[in-house]
């Protein structure tokens, strides 16, 4: 009993700690950016001071705030997608970018953009435009997931499935390149920019729709904790525990589709967060039990994304580092660490 209590205490401690880190990073994202604004001024602006300098007010409320919110939501969404995929495919190296799901979503976005008039870019979208892009991204992501799912019943090895995912991703990116070939120069340029990844793609007016779809996905994932835990035993055991396998898996994949497609549509195909964060969360918390792991993954994912966003603005007034240049620096070493130490890490055995 004491053993379990101690573990629960420690988990609570970690959760509170990660929550504090999240708040701190969120504040940092509001106070620091490529343009330096005095902290006192930032504080006043956030408190609703109307007298502050108009350009600073605009930067903080129209740029930094939505960007921080986007980072928070996207980080959580991608990380949860990764966790859901890792459990569903019984494969700790699954993730939305590695299995080609992000690329599938990108293809959907590219198709919608081309059909809607050529240029790929989501900066100034109406609600119907937003919906079209989102549906395109979800359909693209779902297509890839169905393909992966079909293969997962044919091939047995975990590595084989990952390689098939990578191949499917390549095919999708070829299709995108072909689409770009027929697109206008501006279209190609904006697609390239989008492909570098950024949390600045969601404006404050789009925020309700964006956050709405992410929150629906996150809530859905929390409702799927019971089947997720059963799936740790594998499909046949889960079925024996009364889990409706087909229905649960479809719900899980639909949730992953919604989460990773919404982020990909607006922030570009962001790599490594979905793959690495579930590992960070498991290593810190020391459990595969989704009751605690899933909420903790949400907190960790949001924090990591906020940290990445902060790192992007490090050059100050000299410009912004692309997001996809930062995420591998944080993500790849973690994956390498996990692979090298897999014999010592509990959840791998």
């Amino acid at each position, binding site marked *: 009993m004491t053993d*379990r209590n101690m573990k629960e205490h420690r988990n609570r401690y970690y959760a509170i700690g990660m929550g504090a880190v999240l708040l701190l990073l969120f504040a940092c994202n509001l106070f620091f950016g490529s343009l330096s604004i005095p902290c006192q001024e930032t504080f006043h602006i956030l408190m609703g001071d109307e007298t502050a300098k108009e350009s600073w007010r605009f930067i903080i409320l129209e740029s930094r705030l939505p960007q921080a919110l986007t980072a928070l939501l996207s980080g959580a969404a991608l990380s949860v997608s990764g966790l859901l995929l890792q459990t569903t495919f019984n494969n700790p190296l699954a993730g939305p970018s590695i299995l080609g799901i992000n690329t599938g979503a990108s293809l959907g976005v590219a198709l919608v953009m081309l059909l809607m008039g050529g240029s790929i870019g989501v900066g100034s979208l109406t609600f119907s435009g937003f919906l079209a892009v989102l549906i395109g991204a979800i359909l693209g992501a779902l297509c890839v997931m169905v393909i992966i799912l079909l293969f997962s019943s044919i091939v047995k090895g975990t590595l084989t499935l990952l390689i098939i995912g990578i191949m499917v991703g390549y095919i999708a990116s070829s299709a995108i390149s072909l689409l770009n070939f027929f697109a206008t120069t501006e279209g190609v340029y904006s697609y390239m920019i989008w492909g570098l990844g950024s949390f600045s793609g969601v404006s404050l007016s789009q925020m309700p729709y964006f956050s709405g779809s992410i929150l629906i996905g996150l809530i859905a994932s929390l409702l799927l904790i019971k089947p997720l*835990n059963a799936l740790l*035993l594998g499909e046949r055991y889960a079925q*024996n525990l009364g889990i409706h396998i087909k229905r649960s898996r479809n719900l899980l994949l639909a949730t992953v589709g919604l989460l990773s497609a919404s982020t990909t549509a607006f922030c570009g195909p962001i790599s490594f967060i979905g793959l690495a964060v579930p590992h960070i969360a498991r290593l810190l918390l020391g*459990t595969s039990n989704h*009751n605690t792991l899933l909420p903790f993954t949400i907190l960790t994912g949001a924090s990591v994304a906020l940290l990445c966003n902060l790192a992007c603005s490090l050059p100050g007034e000299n410009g912004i580092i692309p997001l996809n240049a930062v995420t591998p620096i944080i993500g790849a070493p973690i994956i390498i660490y996990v692979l090298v130490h897999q014999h010592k890490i509990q959840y791998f055995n």
Partner: protein
Amino acid sequence: MEKEIIVSAQHLSIGYRYKGVSTPIHENLDFTLKCGELTSLLGPNGAGKSTLMRTISHLQPLLSGSITLSGKELSSYNEKELSRTIGIILTDKTQTGGLTVNELVALGRQPHTGFFGRLSKQDKERIESSIQAVGLSSKKGSYMAELSDGERQKAMIAKTLVQECPLILLDEPTAFLDAASRIEITQLLHEIAKEENRAILLSTHDIEQALVLSDQIWLLTQQGLTCGTPEDLVLNLQMDKLFEGKNVQFDKQRGSFSPSINFQKEIFVTASEDSLLHWGVNAINRLGFGQASTPQGHIQIHLMDKNQILYKGEKGEETTLSSFEEMTNFITQKEK
């Protein structure tokens, strides 16, 4: 008191159905499983043990005939009811290394918990007592990854116990275990069957263990299914069916299979006690000699003690040997 029958099958045909074409592996199987009994399913590889287990656990549809589970047709069960009636242990790979024993066993409670899987006080008590029943109380806070293979299997058994199913099916539960854990696990299952009045069916290649601890033995061969108590099957020479056509024979004295060799020569062996005789015959068999029924015209070996062996040649010459090693070397030398 008559034991309650939980599973009964009539004219059961099992196998695969692909695009409407049935490929039966076995037809016309009839069997029953009773509560409180441990039944071991034996059979050579490819005889259809797993297919039979999967069919009984409803993971695979039957081709024809019927299976009745607790008085109800198996096909009429829904998933929820099944999860409370049949508990299974498979050889599937799991991702449970990062769960504690407690958390793993708690998963077995899922058929009884609500949408969010929250555990009531009764659920927790049931988990606690099941962990105790398999003897893992001291390890309940340990990660699954930290357990030995035998302990992992015990945790899985505890998981099946909290499921509170009257029927437990285990597919080769002792396959990856060392000899001591194998005996321990089979013994544990035997106790559970008896004390908790469950029907347990396990498939295994461990014939010796199965004969010692099972209440019923099922022999599944290409010819079909033979059921009975271990003793009846052994003494009615049914065990030889298991590997018909293979170069092995069943030794009903020892309860195990051994290579069948037609010995060219024989040695007459006597011994002061049974275990000496057993190992003496074992040694001469290995050297290529059968056991002669009379001393006349044969080499004789008298095992007075494990360190005192009298060798008598065909011409009556006598040698005293002080160990089995000396004896085997001596016979080999002589044969040259």
